[in-house]
């Protein structure tokens, strides 16, 4: 079951990904509660962040593929002085989560929410959660703690 967070309040003053032809499918996936990662159709490896060609074999034959959303915390930082509108939210957590999908490890960056920053730890299980931003007609991805 995908985790859906409460919708973000309006106005949303933090930066968001700029919709482009290249990320359109990924952003549409978030609205459908699917986390899509480019998968090489020639060698099978996942690639993150999205890049022009597969990092394992240089093929450009990549397709957005749904992943489980499950991950573990690879590293994190607690920001105490945040830029712009993030200033009002300190302290907040930015975490790199290593996706369960292998063999090429994918480290996905996102805010780790629904947790006391003091409780964040390397190795803790996390999963993708979806936060709709109705005023911007878009959805963001976050990390939340996962039971397990």
């Amino acid at each position, binding site marked *: 079951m995908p985790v859906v967070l409460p919708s973000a309040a309006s106005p949303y003053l933090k930066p968001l990904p700029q919709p482009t032809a*290249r990320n359109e499918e990924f952003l549409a996936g978030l609205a459908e509660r699917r986390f899509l990662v480019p998968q090489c159709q020639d060698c099978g490896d996942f690639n993150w962040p999205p890049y022009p060609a597969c990092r394992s074999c240089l093929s450009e034959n990549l397709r957005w593929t749904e992943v489980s959303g499950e991950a573990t915390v690879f590293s994190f930082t607690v920001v105490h*002085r945040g830029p712009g509108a993030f200033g009002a939210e300190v302290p907040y957590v930015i975490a790199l989560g290593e996706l369960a999908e292998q063999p090429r490890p994918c480290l996905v960056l996102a805010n780790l929410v629904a947790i006391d920053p003091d409780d964040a730890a390397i190795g803790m299980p996390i999963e993708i959660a979806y936060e709709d931003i109705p005023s911007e007609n878009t959805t963001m991805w976050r990390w939340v703690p996962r039971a397990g």
Partner: protein
Amino acid sequence: MSSLHRHAAIIGVYTTEQAVCLLRSSASLQLEAVRSALAEAGQPARLLDGLVPLDPSPWGTVPSGHMYWAEQLGERPQTFLELGSAVGGVAKAAAAVSAGLCRLVAVFWSRTSDPGGPPADWTASATDDLILGSPPVHGGDPLAMRALWTRRYMHEFKVTSEDLARVAVDQRHKARLKPDSIMGRLGELTVDAVLASGLLRDPLHVLDCPGENDGGYAILVASAEIAADSKTTPVWVLGGAEASGPSLYAAGPDRVPLTDGPVRASADRAFLAAGVGRDEVDVVGVWDDSTATVLNTVELMGFCGPGEGAQYCRDGHLSLGGSLPANTDGGMLSNSNCGESSGLHLIEVVRQLRDECGARQVPGARIGAVQAQGYGTHTHAATLVLAAD
């Protein structure tokens, strides 16, 4: 009489479609060309360690383009980086192969009329990630990315905040011996003062990081003939090497460059080229965009083992009077951080080897090393080994 040199050979060639107007991106043409030349030679992309991108513009400026390719080729350091024409590019690539800087070099070009496609919405650096806006959409920035790496480093090797603070204390002490250092006049530091300076991006405190200031510099490199005719003691470049890797954020089989990557690649090649052992180095300049970088860089340069940097510092090796005084002017942390500050580390080592450093002089310093990084810790690394006779 034909040459007996047989050190480097051309093993693969490929041309893409050539047409008046190609409706394909430069990036795609370059990828196809590199991929296909490798295929013709029967060699895998993972062997590429040298690049001559005759047009780096799809990927940004010269160093950015190298960061893109280092990541695209599987997050591996590229140890030969060059620009120029194809013929000159091959000439220099052959010289680099002969010199042992690299083993397989791609020389490649593209031009296209297609105004769209990459580079506008791709990025040369995964840290920028124009596709998805990371890290800014998560309230991140380069310092936050460095903090992520620092926490992983501390986790893997049981390094404490006190260990990091010790680096800041030691370098501030050295800066106080350099009259024109920017931070020296602010007085000595203690570990407690560093920890009390406030967290910027946990685990990095304010005093774990350099400030930013203005300043410039120049370095002249000359032939032996001109050096003999100069007013200064020559400081000889015994060997040097460069290696470019992807940004911190890139994921790969060696997920973070804590034990390997561009710093180690450049240091190993430089010391090999110089014919100098680590134990012969009298003074060192070490990239210090954070206190953690200093400890990890000393490990990656081979002065101590992986994860041993904190103990090495605790034992006093990096301090004045130790076996490997580092950043004797206070470094970026306490002397100056003027933008491309590796030149300052280099100039300080040169001055040490010329015996010009007064109160902070390392007595009898004869062999020095300098390690520089840029574009996001570990990303664009270089090492030089220097000697004054």
